[in-house]
């Protein structure tokens, strides 16, 4: 029997507020130099005191409501005490035994294909520590520099129950969570380091391992896959899995045992005496949630006739969903079907291949391409060519041609009306390949396909497949085949 894999996640997301959690410093630090977005409070200078940013609590409560959590009547901030050079006060203000919200769930697509609820344990609010920059490598570097720009950025930590059964499900959980947070306008996944994950993972019946320091969506699947293999191999060899904390080394794709010193943490939590208890449960009713991914998926199926898979893909990312609706806005009835296929199946693949952001693509250009395809002016094959040229041009920041211009420029227009060119190509193809004609006569099915391919080559893919088939069959017939 296959060993059952048990996965729970702790996801830290930076809330996209304008100012930090406990001071007025701006959170927009990424393009500025180190230690430029700091003040006595987020530097932890002696005597400075935290003042809670109301907006971050509102954002966190939006998430709590969207994830069906119960906001506690009274929650409380606590100090998590530990020494580390990136932690300016030597304690992190976080929430411990009275978090903002408890319970809740997030629905994902299970590995079996159906919908599955991943139960949540809690959501709490905390401050981000600063950041260390190691000069040289971490173990034997010459020195480290510390940047407190990140110190005090509001984070929410969302803790799931151990409800996931595969790395793929964990990835789906994260994708769905990211989409939900973006729909709520509280999170920007484009910002570097805006999401960090710790994963708890075990094989049923064995000890649990915590994998820390996973900083990308792809990394989660990689880290978990590595860790499952490691644990299964241990068990197969009759060894046992130690209960421990491991770090994920993204570059090498492996997990590594944390030094035992780091595992002996006693955080000595106690209530933060400089902040008052939080009584915000009554705010929940006033929160009006926007349309969330599941609702939008349903709407895409009903309104645009999208398939479940297309709707899931398109609404699984806020920008993509908005992009789709912009593309079809002018003619939903006419364009939706083709647009869904071209965006969900083709465009995303081409973007991923180029590691290119959707932001670089003009919806109007895709609308134009889909219209050209809908009017049967080019073949699907040419459509892909046009799309690729268009994306490559955008990527190189060249002046981007419109799809219509590319079609004209490369003379990709279908030769439907002009059967002469196809007929000529057919004649040539048959004359140049007498063996194919013989094979066809002998009833070999491959021969026809071979000739179709030859004709396509000669017309550079512009021949309408239907017309080509009809004319070729006729031509063969006239030769007594």
């Amino acid at each position, binding site marked *: 029997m296959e060993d059952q894999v048990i996965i729970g996640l702790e996801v830290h997301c930076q809330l996209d507020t304008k100012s930090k959690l406990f001071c007025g410093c701006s959170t927009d630090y990424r393009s500025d130099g180190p230690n430029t977005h700091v003040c*006595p409070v987020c*530097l*932890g*200078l*002696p*005597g*400075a*005191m*935290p*003042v*809670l940013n109301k907006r971050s609590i509102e954002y966190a409560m939006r998430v709590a409501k969207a994830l069906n959590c119960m906001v506690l009547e009274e929650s409380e901030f606590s*100090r998590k*005490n530990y*020494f580390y*050079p990136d932690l*300016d*006060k*030597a*304690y992190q203000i976080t929430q411990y035994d009275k978090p903002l919200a408890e319970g809740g769930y997030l629905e994902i697509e299970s590995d079996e294909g159906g919908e599955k609820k991943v139960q949540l344990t809690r959501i709490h609010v905390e401050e981000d520590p600063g950041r260390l920059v190691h000069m040289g490598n971490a173990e034997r570097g010459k020195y*480290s520099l*510390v940047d407190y720009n990140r110190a005090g950025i509001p984070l929410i930590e969302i803790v799931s129950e151990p409800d996931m059964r595969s790395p793929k499900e964990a990835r789906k959980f994260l994708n769905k969570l990211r989409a939900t947070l973006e729909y709520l306008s509280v999170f920007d996944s484009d910002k570097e380091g805006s999401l960090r994950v710790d994963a708890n993972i075990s094989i049923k019946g064995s000890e649990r391992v915590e994998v820390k320091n996973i900083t990308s969506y792809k990394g989660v699947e990689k880290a978990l896959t590595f860790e499952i293999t490691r644990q299964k191999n241990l068990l197969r060899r009759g060894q046992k899995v130690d209960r421990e904390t491991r770090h994920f080394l993204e570059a090498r794709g492996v997990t590594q045992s944390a030094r035992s*010193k780091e595992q002996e943490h*006693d955080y*000595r*939590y*106690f209530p933060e*005496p*400089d*902040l*008052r208890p939080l009584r915000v449960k009554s705010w929940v009713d006033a929160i009006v949630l926007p349309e969330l991914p599941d609702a939008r998926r349903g709407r895409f199926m009903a309104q645009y006739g999208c398939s479940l898979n297309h709707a899931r893909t398109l609404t699984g990312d806020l920008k993509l969903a908005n992009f789709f609706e912009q593309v079809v806005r002018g003619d939903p009835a006419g364009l939706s079907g083709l647009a869904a296929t071209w965006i969900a199946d083709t465009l995303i693949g081409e973007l991923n291949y180029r590691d290119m952001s959707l932001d670089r693509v003009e919806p109007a250009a895709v609308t134009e391409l889909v219209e050209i395809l809908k009017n049967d002016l080019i073949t699907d094959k040419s459509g892909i060519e046009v799309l690729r040229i268009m994306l490559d041009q955008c990527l190189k920041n060249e002046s981007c041609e419109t799809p219509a211009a590319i079609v004209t420029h490369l003379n990709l227009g279908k030769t439907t009306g002009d059967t002469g060119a196809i007929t000529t190509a057919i004649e040539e193809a048959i004359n140049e390949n007498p063996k194919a004609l013989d094979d066809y006569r002998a009833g070999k099915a491959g021969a026809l396909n071979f000739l179709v391919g030859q004709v396509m080559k000669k017309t550079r893919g512009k021949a309408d497949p239907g017309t080509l088939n009809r004319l070729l069959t006729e031509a063969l017939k006239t030769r007594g085949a």
Partner: protein
Amino acid sequence: MAARTIVFEPADPCHAFLTTCSRAEYSDGPLAGVAVAVKDNISTKGIETTCASKILKGYVPPYDAHVVGLLKAAGAAVVGKTNMDEFGMGTTTENSAFGPTLNPSDTGRVPGGSSGGSAAAIAAGMVTMALGTDTGGSIRCPAAFCGITGLKPTYGRVSRFGLIAYANSLEQIGPLGKNVSDVATLMGVIAGHDHRDSTSRNRPFSHSPKNEIKGLKIGIPEEYFGPGVDPEVASVVRKAIGRLVELGATTVPCSIPSMQYALAAYYVTCTSEASSNLARFDGVRYGPAPDTKKSWHDAYQEVRREGFGPEVRRRILLGTFALSSGYYGKYYAKAQVARQNVKADFARIFAGVDVIAGPTMPSIAFKLGEKSDPLSMYLADILTVPANLAGIPAISVPCGKVRGMPVGLQIMGKHFEDERVMDAAYAYEQAVI
């Protein structure tokens, strides 16, 4: 208008100051040109602030504490930073890394602590008013030992923003002065809401003390006159309370049974908070950095071992232990229950009286070096810590002498009735002048 300056170059035989500003600027306002001394745990922009600790030697805050901003706005001249027990941890000001302050009444004795420098500066006539901080008696004790007046305000009445925290949930910044009127004036400047301190309340102070106390009901807790209190001190304080009765007050005997656990609750709470507050002193951002190429872990140990004095290290260790996993429930959580009991006792008593009175300290000022064992020093705080645990206002006003040394009368009041304790103190002061 250009700022004016006063010259402040006092001889300081009692070592009240750690830093003096020889040319102190001042401006217009109710305190225009008044020299005010500030305890060295209150941040002053551009003036070294050390908490009397080696670990902060050379630290010059880039910002003013809220109260310092208010002082400047009122026209006062901040003339210097006063000595104290390191980080406020002590009852004698002997725990200063830069040497003890001496009691101006008898230089062989301590001035009390931890705001010993502020009290001595006033008693020696160097300034008329000063800021101190009171975590478990640190304003009232030196006020009593030095023969001046000091108020621990209601918790939340004065912003703590810029006060280098020792025990956040207990401490308040408060005024010390030669007399009750000075204390009231200074309190009027520093009290009120500050959005930068989430525990501060919008309760400004604008009261001129009145000596009309007819009908005032004074609770007299038996514990304040029991074992451990010097009988001579108790007798002087009883006489002072008798004087208040002559002025029209009445007394009601009462009891604070929770005092049995008050000292333990106080020391568990303040050391726990301190262990966390003082963890940031690691030599990375300010203070002396280690001259070492060790790993950060070892460098921290080196800085902290060298930088903190023995009493601070003791309290950090105690607090770290009290918060440890497996001990939290036994110590910190229990201390909070005991604290609730103290609050409940005060609430019960205050249902029947207006103020509570007793001695500030169980004895007169100790001789230098007399309290060498920590526990006997801690026991001296027994009469002052209940007000901090409950967050209520308490004042110490001079009420006579024992063996030539000043004795303080302590008057405690209900939450936000700082005015009433001040009136009672003022009535006494005016009656004995």
